[in-house]
C-alpha cells in the first residue's frame, strides 16, 4: 500500500513544511535570545506576510518572486518598527523589570493585529491554489510544482539564515549580543540597533514563510495561531533560544507529522506531536539539539 513513491512524497512534504516551522521557530528563538521575551505576536507577523503576499501577487499582479521580496522587506520594516516603537520604549522605561510587561505587550500586539485584520479584511480567507501549477514526474514519483517551490524556498531561506548568522559581521554581532550584551557593547556594537534588526529579521522570516505557504495556509485573521503553536513545538524540541536547534527540529516535526498523518489513524497526528513535546520536556528539557556550553 505504501510504495516508495508515496514515502518519498511524504518525506518531501514533511521536510518542506517542517523547514517552514523551523524558520518560524528560528525567528522566535532569535528574538528570545536577544530580548529575552517570547514574541506571542509571531503568528500575526506570519499572517501579515500572507496578506501582503496575496495583495502583491493577486491584487496588484506582481510576479510571485517579486511579491515575495516585497512582502519580506515589508515585514522586516514592520518588525523594526514594532521593536523601536513599542518594545524599546517599554524596556527603556522599566529597565530590568520589563520582561513580564514585554511578554504581555506582545500578547497585546497579537490581539490588536488579529482584530485589525478582521476589521480591514474581514473573516474571509484569501488564498491561492498554487503559485506554480502543474507537477514534476520522476519515474513513479509525482511531485506538485508547488511542493518543489516550497521545499526550495524553505531550504534556501534556512541556508541563507545559517550563513548570515555564521559568516557575516552582523550575524556574529547578533549572536554575541544574545550571549553577553554588555561585552558586545564594549566592543563597539550598538545593541539597540541589533535588537531592532533582530526583531526585523524574525518578522521578515515569519512574513516570508507566510508568503511562501499561501497555498497551504490562506490569509485570514487568526491563521497565526496554528502556526505559532508549531513554532512553539519546534522551539521546545530544539531547545529554547537555540536557533540551530529550531532549524533542525522543524524538519523533524514536519516528518513526524507527515508520517503520522499517513500511517496513524485520524486524529493521532496532534497526539503524537504532543507526546513528543512531553517526552522532550521530561527527558531532555534543554532540547534535543542544544549542547550546553558552560562557564568555568
Amino acid at each position, binding site marked *: 500500500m505504501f510504495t516508495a513513491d508515496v514515502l518519498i512524497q511524504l518525506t518531501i512534504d514533511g521536510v518542506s513544511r517542517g523547514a517552514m516551522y523551523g524558520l518560524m521557530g528560528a525567528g522566535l528563538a532569535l528574538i528570545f535570545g536577544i530580548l529575552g521575551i517570547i514574541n506571542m505576536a509571531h503568528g500575526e507577523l506570519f499572517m501579515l506576510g500572507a496578506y501582503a503576499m496575496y495583495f502583491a501577487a493577486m491584487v496588484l499582479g506582481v510576479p510571485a518572486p517579486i511579491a515575495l521580496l516585497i512582502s519580506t522587506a515589508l515585514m522586516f520594516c514592520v518588525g523594526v518598527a514594532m521593536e523601536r516603537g513599542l518594545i524599546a520604549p517599554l524596556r527603556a522605561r522599566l529597565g530590568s523589570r520589563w520582561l513580564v510587561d514585554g511578554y504581555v505587550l506582545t500578547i497585546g500586539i497579537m490581539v490588536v493585529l488579529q482584530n485589525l485584520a478582521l476589521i480591514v479584511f474581514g473573516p474571509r480567507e484569501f488564498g491561492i491554489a498554487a503559485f506554480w501549477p502543474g507537477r514534476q514526474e520522476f519515474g513513479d514519483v509525482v511531485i506538485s510544482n508547488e511542493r518543489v517551490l516550497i521545499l526550495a524556498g524553505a531550504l534556501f531561506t534556512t541556508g541563507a539564515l545559517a550563513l548570515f548568522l555564521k559568516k557575516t559581521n552582523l550575524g556574529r554581532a547578533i549572536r554575541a549580543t544574545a550571549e553577553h550584551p554588555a561585552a558586545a557593547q564594549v566592543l563597539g556594537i550598538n545593541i539597540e540597533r541589533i535588537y531592532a534588526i533582530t526583531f526585523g529579521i524574525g518578522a521578515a522570516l515569519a512574513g516570508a514563510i507566510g508568503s511562501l505557504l499561501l497555498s497551504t495556509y490562506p490569509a485570514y485573521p487568526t491563521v497565526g495561531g496554528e502556526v505559532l503553536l508549531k513554532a512553539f513545538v519546534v522551539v521546545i524540541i530544539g531547545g529554547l533560544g537555540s536557533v540551530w536547534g529550531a532549524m533542525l527540529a522543524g524538519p523533524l516535526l514536519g516528518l513526524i507529522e507527515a508520517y503520522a498523518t499517513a500511517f496513524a489513524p485520524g486524529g493521532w497526528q496532534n497526539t503524537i506531536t504532543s507526546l513528543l513535546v512531553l517526552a522532550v520536556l521530561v527527558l531532555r528539557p534543554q532540547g534535543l539539539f542544544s549542547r550546553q*556550553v*558552560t*562557564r568555568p
Partner: protein
Amino acid sequence: MLLQVRELKVGYASGADVLRGVDLSVGASSVTGLIGANGAGKSTLLKTICGFLRRRGGAIAFDAADIGKLQPSQLAAHGIAYLMEGHSVFPGLTVEENLILGTWAFRKERARAKQAVERAFELSSVLRAKRKVKAGLLSGGQQRILEMERLTLNDPRLVILDEPSLGLSPKLVHEVFERIAQMKADGAGVLVVDQSARHVCAASDHLYVLRLGEICIEGPAASFSDRIDELVRNFI
C-alpha cells in the same frame, strides 16, 4: 593627562552615593593602580567611566573632552578598552569569532581587522591551538587570555581593567601583569583594579587607594612598595 576624573559622585538606583567625590587621573604610557576593600566602589568607578552608570556629579574627561555622556558602545571608537568585572567572552562563539568581534570598531577596514586577528594568533600559542573551539569550552585562564588579547586588537589608548588576575594561577597572574607592562610599552594608559595589591603596586607608576567611596591615599607607586603590607592592613 589622558583620563581625568574630578569630584565624581555616583550611586545606584535610589540609594546613597557609592562614590562620594573621587579624583583620579591616568596618563599615557603609564600604569595607574587602584586598590581598595571589597565594596569600596572600585568597579563602580570603572563602570561609570565606561558609560554603564551615570554620574550624579563631577566630571570625566578623556583627552580633555567631556565623556560623561558616553555610551558603552562608543568606547571602542574613542580608543578605550574595558575589561569588565567577571567573564566577558562570548561562550557559544569560537575563539576566532571572539577575536573577530574585537575588531568590530574598525570592521570596515578589512585588511587591518584581519591582520589584527592573525597577529593575536601569532602571539598566543594557546589561542592558536583553540582557534575553532567555542570560547565557553576553554578553561578560566584561557578565557582570560582571550579577553586580554581581544582587548588590545584595536590598539586602544586607554585600557581599563577590573580584576584581571581574579581566579588565575600564579603563572597566569604573572602573564597578565606582563601583558599590562606591554600595553604601557605600546603607549597606552592603563587603569588597573586588582585584589592582589602587591602585583598592582609593582606594575603601577601611580597608585590610588579607595576607601568607602573616597580616595584616601595616593602617590607614586614606588613610594608604597616597601610598606604595601601596612597599607593593605590599614586600608583594605
